[in-house]
């Protein structure tokens, strides 16, 4: 059997999934299904900063077997009172500062492929105890592993 064409429509599914909203001061954790391998295309989350802390930068990391890998960090610091929607986009070559409408587009590694039970975590350097992440959604390609 020849190898399947990776862009063939029968090879993968396109999916959207949500992560539970964490308590204030905690990171978002999205866990890959146990029977699937995924490639992250986009991740979106709304972050509100309620504490004055310097050098607060939202970032994405992946975790495999308890080892965490930082994937990418936004270069724009978020200050007290800000509420921005972060759109992490795989393969986008430049960060886009759209804070004028409360959004920031952040490049994400491409391809960012995660194995079953791996986690995608969205966090912030210098995260404050009352800062909140909500509405995390992930769009990805999914391959079911038999």
């Amino acid at each position, binding site marked *: 059997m020849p*190898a399947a064409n990776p862009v063939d429509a029968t090879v993968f599914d*396109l999916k959207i999934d949500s992560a539970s909203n964490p308590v204030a001061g905690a990171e978002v954790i999205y866990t890959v299904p146990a029977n699937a391998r995924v490639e992250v*295309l986009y991740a979106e989350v709304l972050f509100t900063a309620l504490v004055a802390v310097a050098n607060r930068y939202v970032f994405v990391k992946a975790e495999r077997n308890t080892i965490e890998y930082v994937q990418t960090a936004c270069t724009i610091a978020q200050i007290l009172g800000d509420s921005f929607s972060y759109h992490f986009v795989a393969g986008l070559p430049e960060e886009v500062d759209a804070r004028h409408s409360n959004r920031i587009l952040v490049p994400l590694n491409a391809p960012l492929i995660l194995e079953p039970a791996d986690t995608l975590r969205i966090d912030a350097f210098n995260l404050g105890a009352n800062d909140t992440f909500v509405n995390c959604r992930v769009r990805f390609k999914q391959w079911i592993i038999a």
Partner: protein
Amino acid sequence: MPQRLPRNPVDLRVHSLTEDSVTGPPVGIPRVYTTPFFTRTLVTALDWRITLAAGGAKYPRVEIDLDGVTFTVAEGSAAIAAAGLTFVSCSIVHPSTFYTAVEGLYKFPLPPDLYLDGNETMRFHVDGMAGGDQINEVKLTGLQWLNPKI
């Protein structure tokens, strides 16, 4: 038994090159394109026109709307400062935003894996859009497969 050969990626039975367009949107609202049922589309380039009644802090933006969730997948980082017509080119090969107000040319990058399944929607928008602004003649270029799984 005939030998099975790898699929030729330029074979039209594997995918077709697609060019689709949307025209005539109402003034003052974003334009929405919905993909055909039973297809999967990989968008590689978009061309469109923006006609602004007034320039200012206005940025071309591409979103996808999926199951009520909006992902902003691309946005230009330079404000369109001039009123009038701007030719926008949005492609996976543009490395960064480029804008020249004199000629009205605007380029910005698309993500490389912009897949849409059947009946999913893409929205063309201008951040900061006002009532007199208009989006015209959107053209999508990409690859499209019939998708029997949908």
